[in-house]
């Protein structure tokens, strides 16, 4: 028996469904794969910095441990907890969208933004201390000891990697602002909430980058 291909009539098509997709499921799958392709380029972008870090840490192991001691472990640990919590609120926002609870969705998105801002605030405090202690690479870098140049290299990696991570957080908070606005205007439903999932993927990716940055920058040579 030949398979009967049935076309959707216009009234059956969801308002959010673009004309070149068969159905919402196919459209969502395409969005997810597209986002993962973008995240792959992000893995390679941060991967380059992690590889550079690995090379120089293997060469200057003592100096990197020495530099790590000048980082604020308490603030770094609090920020790790803040970021993991923001990942939880993000995934709870996705859940709220799936079950169609608009107020919870807006609430969790705002909470995620707030935690992101707390992270950036604590990062600003840390950066300010580094400026006050003359630990920022460049002409103002002042460090006594035989490994001064190598410690400066450690701080170049510290500012480069955490700076790029912070930039991603700022972009993420911008994306969340758009989502809050759209969710507030009731643009999402249990049938269509792909943008929330896609921004969620981005947010969790940024969390994963920090999961690796934290032990590599803050926790070396502590014993």
């Amino acid at each position: 028996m030949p398979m009967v291909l049935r076309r959707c009539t216009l009234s059956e098509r969801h308002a959010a469904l673009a004309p070149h997709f068969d159905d919402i499921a196919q459209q969502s799958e395409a969005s997810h794969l597209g986002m993962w392709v973008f995240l792959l380029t992000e893995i390679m972008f941060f991967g380059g910095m992690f590889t550079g870090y690995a090379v120089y840490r293997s060469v200057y192991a003592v100096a990197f441990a020495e530099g790590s001691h000048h980082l604020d472990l308490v603030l770094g640990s609090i920020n790790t907890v803040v970021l993991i919590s923001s990942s939880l609120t993000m995934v709870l926002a996705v859940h709220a969208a799936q079950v169609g609870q608009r107020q919870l969705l807006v609430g969790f998105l705002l909470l995620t933004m707030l935690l992101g801002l707390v992270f950036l605030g604590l990062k600003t405090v840390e950066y300010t201390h580094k400026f006050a202690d003359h630990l920022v690479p460049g002409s103002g870098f002042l460090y006594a000891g035989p490994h001064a140049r190598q410690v400066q290299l450690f701080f170049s990696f510290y500012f480069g990697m955490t700076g790029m991570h912070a930039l991603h957080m700022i972009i993420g908070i911008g994306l969340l602002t758009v989502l809050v606005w759209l969710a507030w205007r009731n643009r999402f439903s249990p049938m269509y909430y792909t943008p929330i999932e896609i921004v969620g993927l981005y947010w969790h990716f940024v969390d994963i980058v920090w999961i690796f940055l934290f032990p590599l920058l803050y926790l070396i040579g502590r014993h």
Partner: protein
Amino acid sequence: MAQHIVSRQIYYRVFVTLLALTLLTIGIAFIGLGGYLNTIVAMTIAVGKALLVMLFFMHVRDSSRLTWVFVGVGFFWLALLLSLTMSDYLTRSWVAVTAW
């Protein structure tokens, strides 16, 4: 897309596990394990945390096989970048080079 909805209980459990692993990695950093072991343990915990985030928070566990291939390819390339580079730098001292 009306896809598989994961129970919130699972998210809470993953969250608590992530917090516990964070405490563990901080605690272990203060204990000298000798040699490269501290770094290896710290990175193993970080990989475990990243896997939890990807599988549960990023819903890779419930994603299509094609998504799994995309994710796998990303980490395969990262592994190539790290392993080929480090196999050079970490083995340079094995061979004494007297002159270039």
